[in-house]
């Protein structure tokens, strides 16, 4: 990412701006969640592989308009939680709901939820533009919208090239463009800052803040505390499949630095 693009106002708070830049074919549907109802909720969520619990009795709820960090060491269960929320895997016990429904029950999922799971989810021989077009066709979204997003993530010049020629940061941005195709109300991002240079991380941070300022919701997982500490309002800390703390940043005495102490204290205790 060369710098913060001028078009970050694509998720600005002004309805007029948004209407002109975004097409929202799904916005005529009645909201699935009533006021005050959580956008994301996990209730007693467990996932077992063989004898091992990847996730054990995890419960949390996220309100609209919030940015939440999902923190934990590698292998703590962050990706598993996201996969359960997205209906890619079925829980062993408990419920994973978005907009009070299971993901596969959403009417127009691409217009409600956007997700970036891993930077590797591309066919290496397919161009960035065709990757987005295939998704757009499947979800009834226009090719013009594809071009808007290529512009937003600054991939227009590379859009015709096969993804195998992309850097890790470019793949992250292409993944984000795919997640934003349907102009969703909720973004789930798995380690989105991987491979981004400092300017890219800065841009992503600004983008997410604007996204949430327009009343939308973000859950951003990371194993690197510093990546999310400046962006999020609260963090869920997960370790070895269990949710071990929920921390609101404004309740901490000196923000990020004491969060780091909490995080290390919580995730390193009882380790051999």
């Amino acid at each position: 990412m060369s710098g913060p693009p001028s078009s970050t106002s694509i998720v600005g708070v002004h309805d007029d701006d948004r209407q002109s830049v975004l097409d929202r074919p799904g916005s005529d549907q009645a909201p699935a969640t009533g006021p005050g109802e959580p956008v994301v909720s996990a209730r007693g969520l467990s996932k077992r592989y063989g004898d091992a619990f990847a996730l054990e009795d995890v419960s949390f709820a996220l309100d609209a308009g919030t940015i939440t960090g999902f923190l934990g060491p590698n292998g703590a269960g962050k990706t598993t939680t996201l996969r359960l929320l997205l209906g890619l895997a079925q829980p062993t016990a408990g419920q994973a709901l978005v907009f009070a429904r299971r993901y596969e029950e959403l009417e127009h999922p691409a217009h409600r939820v956007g997700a970036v799971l891993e930077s590797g989810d591309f066919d290496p021989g397919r161009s960035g533009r065709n990757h987005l077009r295939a998704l757009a066709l499947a979800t009834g979204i226009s090719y013009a919208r594809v071009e808007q997003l290529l512009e937003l993530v600054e991939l227009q010049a590379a859009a015709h090239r096969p993804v195998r020629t992309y850097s890790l940061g470019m793949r992250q941005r292409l993944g984000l463009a795919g997640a934003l195709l349907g102009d969703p109300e909720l973004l789930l991002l798995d380690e989105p800052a991987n491979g981004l240079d400092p300017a890219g991380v800065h841009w992503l941070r600004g983008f997410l803040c604007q996204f949430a300022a327009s009343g939308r919701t973000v859950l951003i997982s990371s194993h690197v505390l510093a990546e999310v500490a400046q962006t999020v309002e609260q963090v869920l800390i997960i370790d070895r499949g269990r949710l071990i703390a929920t921390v609101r940043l404004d309740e901490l005495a000196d923000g990020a630095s004491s969060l780091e102490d909490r995080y290390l204290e919580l995730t390193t205790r009882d380790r051999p």
Partner: protein
Amino acid sequence: MSGLLRSELLKQRTTRTSLWLPAWMAGLILLVVLLHVFSLSFEQIASSDGQLKVVGWGTSIGALFASLLGAMSITAEIRHGTIRPTFLATPRRARVIAAKLRACAITGAAIGLFAQALSAGVEAAGLAVRGIHIELGAGDYVQLLAGGAGAAAMFAAIGVGVGALIRSQVGAVVGLCVWVLLIETTLIGNAPSAGRFAPGASAGAIAGAVQTQSASKLLAPALGVLLLAGYAVAAATAGAIATTSRDVD
């Protein structure tokens, strides 16, 4: 045309492997048909039956490559992880499988048609070089082309089912090749009473010929259609059930 079908067709023509398939297939047909036309004795290839057996390689190779296309429409997505965005866009996974079946049946029919036309053309050219008269009539060619296309469309559906069940790209490709080129050939050669009910032999029954076999050992065309359609439905259903019930990694 539905958006999902258009999406699958776009994925098909923007994947490198599926672009290579017709080229590999053309090379294989060229090699196999020319080898037979020039190595068989005059007696073996002068008759209409002998000429049908050779052009029947187009049936089995076309069906094989159509099934590979079908299998790779799923295994390539699993291999590269694009199955995740695909299922996020369309969480009702059976709809994705249905779209893949339609897309692969369309392209599979084209592959079958191409395979059959190529093998018939190459055989005719080879026979002309050897100065042997072509005994096949217009009726034979019509059945070869239409039957080859239809059989390949159904084989593409079998491939989608097999790919969804096996999930591994290499496993599905090797499995389908071994089945069509090795097991089917052995079955029809050594136990024709059972072998003629196999999928490849059913394709031959529809097209009028399959590798090394002509109509005499095969089922009636209508029976071949029913049987092969049964295999296709069974494989596609099994693949759809496996896809909807299993977690995506």
